[in-house]
């Protein structure tokens, strides 16, 4: 039956796509999503892997176009329609898929990997045509491991020799926030929020986090989750919202919780506290517990507060340096005592630069203790004499050999 003649019985549209769901091919209406018709559960293998002679070795004079390629292109189309990307992206993805599929590095990979390739091509075209989408979204759509798909994406981009810009987290924010079902339709009045307000505030919060080194190098999704959670709390900072933990919030909004989001929330709160302290009309101390109600003010005046905080930090540093200059004669004795003990004293100033500035990447502020370097063999020429005793220490005695052989035999 020709696809053009099919019409969806539910909405009457003729926009029908073939969608391969697990091993059952279905015909699905794009507009309303209803299944128009289904194929048999186990059809005769349309994959070329079913025939006795593999496609690359067949001697047929007129080679039919590779079935897997056709199926792959259809998969590309269906995914593009599910995501409702524009037609340019759909076309570009098809072009890239054909090119990548037929490239020697990808022609012989497994069918599963070729499916990942669909996602990679889509990601590439979205990035080139400025359609913000994250790898996590595409890989969840394909039911694939994001890491595997990501590595394949990097390989593909290198092979096809294309430079694609990275995705800005603030662009993805809006699409991400739509995942959260907490509009007034889905959640009780007290806890609901409109998408527009939520997204606007979350974007501001993410921009502020990016300025203060919380975003660079981190996975974007936990950051977005933390931003949405804090924005939601701060839009109506009443008792109900403040008491609701991240876990319950995710249950409410029907999204999967990401564990790193808790750490991001802590980092964001710390950063907001530093800025909140600079608000002139706040008398009480700003702590992570009560910072949420000040978030609105902080975001509104964030540039001014940033400037004030940085200036205050500079003044504090200057004062400290002056104080240390005055105390120098007294300090020297203390230092001498310390120097005897620690051999790594000279390396201390470097790791601590994170503590001297107001905002630093968290991995610097909470630097893990690096292993103490053993200054083993300095000034080795490489041509030294090697003592026999040293080498003999590495060789078993005949007695040991016998015992070892015996124990191996017993273990087998």
């Amino acid at each position, binding site marked *: 039956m020709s696809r053009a003649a099919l019409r969806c019985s539910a909405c009457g549209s003729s926009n029908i796509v073939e969608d391969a769901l697990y091993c059952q091919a279905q015909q699905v209406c794009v507009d309303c999503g209803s299944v128009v018709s289904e194929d048999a559960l186990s059809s005769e293998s349309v994959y070329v892997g079913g025939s006795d002679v593999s496609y690359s070795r067949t001697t047929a004079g007129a080679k039919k176009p590779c079935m897997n390629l056709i199926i792959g292109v259809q998969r590309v189309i269906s995914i593009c329609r599910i995501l409702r990307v524009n037609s340019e992206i759909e076309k570009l993805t098809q072009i890239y898929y054909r090119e990548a599929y037929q490239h020697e590095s990808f022609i012989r990979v497994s069918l599963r990997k070729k499916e990942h390739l669909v996602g990679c091509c889509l990601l590439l075209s979205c990035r080139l045509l400025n359609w913000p989408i994250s790898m996590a979204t595409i890989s969840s759509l394909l039911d694939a491991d994001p890491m595997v798909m990501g590595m394949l994406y990097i390989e593909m981009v290198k092979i096809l020799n294309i430079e694609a810009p990275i995705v800005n987290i603030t662009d993805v924010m809006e699409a991400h926030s739509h995942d959260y079902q907490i509009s007034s339709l889905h959640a009780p009045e007290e806890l609901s929020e409109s998408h527009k307000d939520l997204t606007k505030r979350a974007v501001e919060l993410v921009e502020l986090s990016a300025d203060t080194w919380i975003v660079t*190098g981190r996975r974007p999704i936990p950051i977005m989750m933390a931003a949405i959670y804090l924005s939601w709390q701060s839009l109506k900072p009443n008792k109900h919202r403040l008491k609701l933990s991240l876990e319950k919030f995710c249950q409410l909004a029907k999204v999967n919780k990401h564990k790193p989001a808790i750490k991001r929330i802590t980092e964001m709160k710390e950063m907001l506290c530093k800025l909140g302290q600079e608000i002139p009309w706040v008398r009480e101390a700003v702590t992570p517990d009560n910072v949420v109600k000040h978030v609105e003010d902080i975001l509104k005046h964030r540039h001014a507060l940033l400037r004030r905080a940085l200036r205050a930090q500079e003044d504090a540093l200057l004062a400290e340096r002056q104080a240390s200059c005055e105390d120098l004669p007294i300090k020297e004795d203390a230092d001498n005592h310390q120097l005897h003990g620690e051999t790594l004293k000279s390396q201390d100033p*470097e790791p601590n630069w994170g503590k001297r500035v107001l905002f630093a990447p968290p991995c610097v502020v909470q630097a893990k203790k690096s292993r103490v370097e053993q200054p083993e063999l300095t000034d080795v020429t*490489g041509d030294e004499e090697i003592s026999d005793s040293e080498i003999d220490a590495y060789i078993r005695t005949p007695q040991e050999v016998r015992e070892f052989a015996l124990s191996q035999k017993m273990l087998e």
Partner: protein
Amino acid sequence: MDEWALERYFDDSIANDSSFILEEELDSHSPAPSGTGPAPSHLPVKAGPSGQVGEELDLSFLPDEVTDDATGHMTTCVLWVSAAVDVSQDSGLGLDSSTQDSAAAADPQQGASGTGTGTSTFCPMTPMTPMTPMTPVTERSGIIPQLQNIVSTVNLGCPLDLKFIALQARNAEYNPKRFAAVIMRIRDPRTTALIFSSGKMVCTGAKSEEQSRLAARKYARVVQKLGFPARFLDFKIQNMVASCDVCFPIRLEGLVLTHQQFSSYEPELFPGLIYRMVKPRIVLLIFVSGKVVLTGAKEREEIYEAFENIYPILRGFRKQ
């Protein structure tokens, strides 16, 4: 004839490497294909290099911003190359045109060619060839990357019985189902070696080239003591890994925007930015904390050079 050939070679290499700088300086000049004119300051640049450049221009070593310090340096180079381009362009037309003589006369003043003094003083690899970064000496970083790991290979020159080695040596492990080599370790220098049945050996974990060589010799000695006629052939350093800390945070998103051809930054996959430098051919992992890992070098100098190349670029992304 030889003198001209050498000079042309030298001038060619300058023209190829500097044409980027020239194009920056001379946006306003329209390309004049022939007829260079006697004045060396008139720069018919685009015709010359474009005809000669078949390869990719390698720009990885150039700093982002052209500071005032650098322009002084660059204008001298520009005058350099102008004279060079004059000569190289005209050389095709014939070596005895009068314009060429005047241009050639301008050259010796800048010390470009040794035509006056003879080819023996002429060396294509003079330091004036702009293959080094354009930052002046005063901006050296002062940070030296520390070597963390050296991988080297050596050929022991005889087939080995791995089962026998695993039985007789205390520091060896051998699991043929998992991997087809004996894994041997020594304490000093603290290294690990993979010894294959063909007699080839890979030595990893040393912190300097000399330590790697010493360790490889110790492993060869152990194999010798076990009764094999082991030799020490073709010792070669295959890879060197170094790391250092620039002590300021780095805006990776900005770096990937401006150096897109060399950088790959995917925060969803890996927190660091992967920078593939073209010259020298080194891969750098740059992290937001300011820590930099350099790998892929066969020689120590490549690592130092790569770091000196990247440091000014990183400095550009320091403040918010």
